[in-house]
C-alpha cells in the first residue's frame, strides 16, 4: 500500500511513517522541511499544505492518506491557521477524491468539541470549535467537518482525535512540563485533581495505522470521528508528577485555583496579541480549562470500530520516558 503522510515532521508523523515502513508499506511524505530521520527511506515532498498543486502532486498514485499537517498553537494570525488547517485539509481531501484514494485518515483534536466543561466518559461529540478566540480548535473543527463531509462511497474518510499525546521526544507536553519544573515555574490548576486521559505516543501512532487499515468505503468507521487515548485517566497532578520524575526534575508545583486560572487566561488571551509577542503565552483560557477540568473519554467506540487497543500503559510509558531522559542526559554530558 502506498501511503501519503502529511505533516510527517512531527513526533506522531515520524512514528506513523516508521510503523508503515516497518510493515512494508510504501510511504510518501509531505511537509515543509526535510526530515533527517526520513531522508533516503521515503519519498519526501517538501511544500506548503496550502498549495493545492503541490499536495495533488504528492498524492499521485497513493492508495491512502494520513493527514497530520496542521498549524498548532495559541498565538499568531488567524488567517495562517485557516490557510493551513482548513485550506490544507481541503487540498488533501480534493487530492484524495480526484486521485480516487479510497482511504483517508484525518487527524483532528478533542479540543474541537471542548466547550470548557468537564468531559467525563465522553464520546467524540460533533466538532463545534467554540472556544473563544482560540484559532486552533476553531480551524480544526472546520477542517474536521470538511473531512467528514468528504466521506463518500469511493473515498472513505475517518477522523481520529488523539488526546494529549506524549512520550520520548515530545517537546509539547513533556518538554514544557520539564522545562517549567526545572525553572521552578510549575503550576497546577485546581490542585491538579481533574481526571485527564492522555495518549502514549506509540499508542497514538498504532491507532492511526489501525484506522488506516479499518477505513474503507462502507466500513463502520467511515464518516465517523473517534477519540483515541490510553483509556487510563489519572488526576493531572499524578501525570505531571510522573513526567517530572521521569525527567529528573523537582516536582514543586504552585497551586492556582481554577477560577483564577480562568480569569488570568481570559486576560492573557486579550492582552498577549497586543504585546506583539509571537512566543507562546504562559497561560490561556483554553489551557486553564484543559488543565483544570476533567476530560476523559469512552474508549469503546475506537476499540470496537478500529480494532485497536493501547499496548503501552501509562506506567510503562513513564518508564520509557525516564530511560529516554536518562540517555538524553548522558549524551549531553558526553558532549561536554
Amino acid at each position: 500500500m502506498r501511503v501519503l503522510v502529511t505533516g510527517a515532521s512531527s513526533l506522531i508523523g515520524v512514528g506513523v511513517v516508521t510503523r508503515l515502513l516497518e510493515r512494508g508499506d510504501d510511504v510518501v511524505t509531505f511537509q515543509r522541511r526535510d526530515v533527517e530521520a526520513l531522508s533516503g527511506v521515503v519519498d519526501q515532498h517538501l511544500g506548503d499544505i496550502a498549495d493545492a498543486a503541490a499536495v495533488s502532486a504528492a498524492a499521485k498514485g497513493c492508495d491512502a492518506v494520513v493527514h497530520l499537517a496542521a498549524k498548532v498553537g495559541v498565538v499568531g494570525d488567524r488567517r495562517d491557521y485557516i490557510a493551513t488547517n482548513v485550506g490544507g485539509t481541503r487540498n488533501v481531501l480534493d487530492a484524495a477524491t480526484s486521485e480516487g484514494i479510497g482511504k483517508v485518515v484525518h487527524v483532528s483534536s478533542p479540543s474541537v468539541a471542548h466547550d470548557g466543561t468537564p468531559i467525563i466518559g465522553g464520546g467524540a461529540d460533533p466538532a463545534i470549535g467554540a472556544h473563544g478566540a482560540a484559532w486552533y480548535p476553531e480551524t480544526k473543527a472546520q477542517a474536521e467537518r470538511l473531512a467528514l463531509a468528504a466521506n463518500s462511497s469511493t473515498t472513505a474518510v475517518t477522523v481520529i482525535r488523539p488526546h494529549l499525546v506524549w512520550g520520548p521526544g515530545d517537546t509539547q507536553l513533556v518538554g514544557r512540563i520539564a522545562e517549567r519544573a526545572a525553572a521552578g515555574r510549575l503550576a497546577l490548576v485546581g490542585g491538579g485533581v481533574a481526571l485527564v486521559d492522555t495518549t502514549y505516543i506509540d499508542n497514538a501512532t498504532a491507532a492511526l495505522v489501525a484506522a488506516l487499515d479499518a477505513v474503507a468505503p462502507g466500513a463502520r468507521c467511515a464518516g465517523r470521528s473517534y477519540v483515541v487515548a490510553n483509556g487510563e485517566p489519572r488526576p493531572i497532578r499524578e501525570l505531571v508528577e510522573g513526567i517530572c520524575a521521569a525527567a529528573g526534575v523537582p516536582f514543586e508545583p504552585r497551586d492556582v485555583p481554577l477560577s483564577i486560572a480562568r480569569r488570568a487566561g481570559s486576560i492573557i488571551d486579550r492582552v498577549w496579541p497586543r504585546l506583539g509577542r509571537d512566543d507562546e503565552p504562559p497561560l490561556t483560557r483554553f489551557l486553564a480549562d484543559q488543565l483544570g477540568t476533567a476530560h476523559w473519554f469512552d474508549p469503546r467506540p475506537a476499540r470496537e470500530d478500529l480494532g485497536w487497543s493501547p499496548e503501552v500503559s501509562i506506567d510503562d510509558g513513564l518508564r520509557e520516558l525516564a530511560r529516554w531522559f536518562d540517555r538524553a542526559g548522558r549524551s549531553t554530558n558526553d558532549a561536554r
Partner: protein
Amino acid sequence: MSTTPDRPDGATWRGWGIDPSWSRLLDVASHDGSTYRWHVLDTGPVERQAGAEAPATILCVHGNPTWGYAWKTFLERFAGRHRVIAIDQLSMGYSERVALRRYATRVADIDDVVAALDISADGPLFLAAHDWGGAIAMGWAVDNVSRVAGMVLCNTGIGVPEGRGAPRIIRLAASGPLRDLVCRRTNGFVEGTVRLSGKRITKIDRAAFRAPYRRAEHRAAVADFVGDIPLRSTEPPHPTEAPLDRVASLLPSIEAPVLLAWGARDIVFDDDFAADLAGRFPNSTLHRFPDANHLVMAEADVARAVDTWLQSVLGADVEPRPAAAAPASSVFAGIDRHRDDVERIAIADLATRTTLDFQSFARRVDGVASSLIQRGLATGDRVAMLTPPGIDLLVAVYGVWRAGGVTVVADRGLGLGGLGKAVRSARPAWTIGPKPAGAASAALRWAPRATHVDVAELMSEAASKADDPELPASPADAADAAVLFTSGATGPAKGVRYTHGQLASQRDALAATYGITDADRLVAAFAPFALYGPSLGVPTALTDCDVTTPGALTAGALDEACCAVDATMAFGSPAALANVVATAAEQPDATWVGLDGLRLVFSAGAPVPAETLRSVAELAPHASIRTPYGMTEALPVADIDLNGIEAAEAGPSVPGVCVGMPVAGAEVRVSQLGFDAIDGVPGAVAAGQTGEILVRAPWVSEGYVGRWQAQRLARPGAGWHRTGDVGRLDDSGRLWVEGRSVHVVHVAEGPVTPVPVERAVERALSPNGDATVGRVAAVGVGPQGCQQLVVVLESATPSGLASPAIVDAVRSVVDEPVAAVLTMRSMPVDIRHNAKIDRAEVAEWAEKLLAGESGAGIARRRRIWRR
C-alpha cells in the same frame, strides 16, 4: 331527555371489525333507584385452562366523545384469553340517553354496571380507561382498591398538573354558549376529536366513532361532559371539584400496578398529565407512544404493550413458589409452651429494670388481642408499632399478631424522615404508641387515616382482660403477619411482607442453625432481635442502651443483661460489638461474669471485621462467635463462625467477604450479573464465577408493600429471591459476597465488584487486620460501561488526592486499573448499622472532585450552555 340511537345491525358491526355477538344490552339497576339500559361490547367469560392462571377481566371505560369502540384493539387482541368488556357510559354510545350525570354519579354508575356484569372473582380485574373515563375509573378504583389488580390509563388526568392552568382548548370548549354550539348543536367536538388522529386511524374507524353521535339529540352528554370539568375555583365551587379532589387524594392508596399508555402528541392530556399521574401512584410505569395523539388506543398498538405488561403483572410466566413444608408450629408456640410458667422470665428490660414472666406475658398478649378486636381491628389490618423497644412493644407485637393484625415495624434506625416515609408507605389502619407518638404521626401525616391506640391505655385494658379467653383462632400460616423495613442504606426503605408461616419458619431456621432450645437464654443488644425471644420460648433480656445509637452499648451493659437472665446467647450489631470491645479495653481489670457464661455470640446486619470478632472471643471465651448472612427479606441465608472467617481470610487474596455455607433448608444460587427477572428463573453460573446471589427458603419473605416493580424484579419465580448482592460460591460451597449489584463498577473491560478491591486494599494497608485505615470504598465514576475505578479511603487527612505512596500501595494490590485514589475525611454510612457505606454518595463526591470544578459549577455551566 333525548332518544337513544339504534344499535347497528350485524353487518354494520362486522364492517367495523366487531364481532356482533360482543354487543349486548343490559338492564342495570341504578343506585338512583331507576333501571337503565346499558350497551356493552363484551367478549364473554373465558374458561380457565388447567394449570394456567385464571383469565383476567379487563373493564374498559371510554372518555368523551367516544364509546366502547375505542377499545376495539383490546377486544380483538384479548378475546378468548381474557374477558374484555368495553362499556358505553350512560347517554353515550349506544347506552340509554338519560338526564345530566355529573362525575360522582358516573362513578356510582360504574359500581352499578360492574355488579350487573357478573365478573368472575377467580381471575384478576383490570381497568382500562381513557380521557374523562380515566377520572371515572380512578374514582371507582379508590373505593375498590382490593378488587383492582391493575389499571391501564390512556391520556387522562385527575387534576390539572401543578404549576399550570387547564388546557386552553378545553377552557374554550367549556365556556358556556360555545360549549353547546361545539359539542351538541354541531358535531364539532366529535369531529375534532376524530380528526386529531389523522391518518393513524382508518376511514372505518372514523365512521364508527361518529356513528352514535350523528344527531344533536344524541350528543347532549358530549356537552355535559365538557361542562362537568371544574376549570377554576368558582364560588360556589363546581359540584365536581370536591369529588375529584377526594379521588386524587386517595390515588396513592392504589398499590396495584398502573400502566400509563400515553399518546405523546396530545395537546390536552400531554406529558405533564402523565407525569402528574405517575407521581400519584406508587406503582406506575409509563409507556409513551411518540407518534400518537389523543385516541392512542386506536392509533397505536397499545394493546400489544398492554399484553406484555399483563403477562408480567399476572405472572403467567412466573414459576410458582414451591409449597413449603408447614413450620413446626405457629409463632406463638414458644409462648404457649410456657404460658403457665410464672417462674420463667419472658422479658427482662434492663433499661427500665422490669421483668415479666411467661404466664403474665402470655396473658397480656391475649388481653391486647382481645382489646384490639373489641376496638374494631379487623383481620389483615396494618398496625404501625410506634412504641419504643421494651416490654410493651413486645407484648403489643404479639398481641396484634394474635388478633390477626399485621405489624408495621419501622425502627428509628431509618432516621425520623425515613421512619415517617416507611410508615406512610404501609398505610396503617392503626397506630400503637405513646400519646406523643400518636400526635406526631398525626401531625406529620405518617398515618392520616389510622386510629391511634395509646399504648399505656392498651396495656391496662389488656391487664383487665387477662382472664378473657374469648379469642378467635390464631391466624393461619398464609395470613400476613408483619411488614419490616429494609435499612434504606441501599435505596429507599422498602416494606417487606411476611406471613405467619414465614416468620415461624424463620424462627425454626434460627433455632436449627444455632441449636437453640428451651435451655437457652437470649440477650438482644439489637432491639428487633428481641422479637424472636418469646416465639423461641427463651427468656430474653434487653440491654440498657439508647436504641437509636446501638453503637453506644458498653461492655458493662451487655454483661449486666447477660447476668439478668443467665444468658447463653447474645445478639449484637457490629457497631454495638465494636463498642463493647472498646469499652472493655478501658477496664482491663474487670471480670465479665455474664459474658463468661455465653455459648454463642452472633452479629449481623453488616460485615464485621475479624479483628473485632477476635476481641469479642477474648471477652466471651466459651462462646462460638457466629455471623449469619441475610437481609430483611431473607434471614438466615448462610452462617460462618470466627474460625471459618479466619480460614477463609488465610489465603493470599480474598474474593470478597466469606459469609460461610448456606444454612440447612436454604438454597443459594449465583446467576448471571444483571439478569432479567421477567425472563424467569436464571440458571446458575459455574462455581468460582461472580454473579448475582439468589436465595430460596421457606422463610423468604412474601414480597414488598407498594413496590410492585421492585417485587417483580426481585422475584424471578419459583420462590427465588434476588438478594441484590453479588458474589460467588467457591469450590467448597462457601458463599463470598462481593458487594451490592448496584455498586458494581462497569468499566470498559467489564464489571468490577467493589468488595474484593476494598478487601485487598484493607489487607495491604493494615496487614494485621488492625484498624489502621478507616473505611475503604471502591466506586466508579463516569457513565456506566466506561466507568473508571476510584478507591476512596477514610482518613484524617484533608479530603482530596491521596499521597503518592498510598496511591502506589493501592495500585500494587488491585488487579484492575485504578484511575485515582482519594481520601475522604468522613465517609457517609447508614444510620441503622453505622457500617454500610453509602457508595452512591461516595461515588458522586468522587466524580465531582475529579471533574475539577464544583458540581454547582457544572450545573451552572450546563444551564448557560443550554440557553
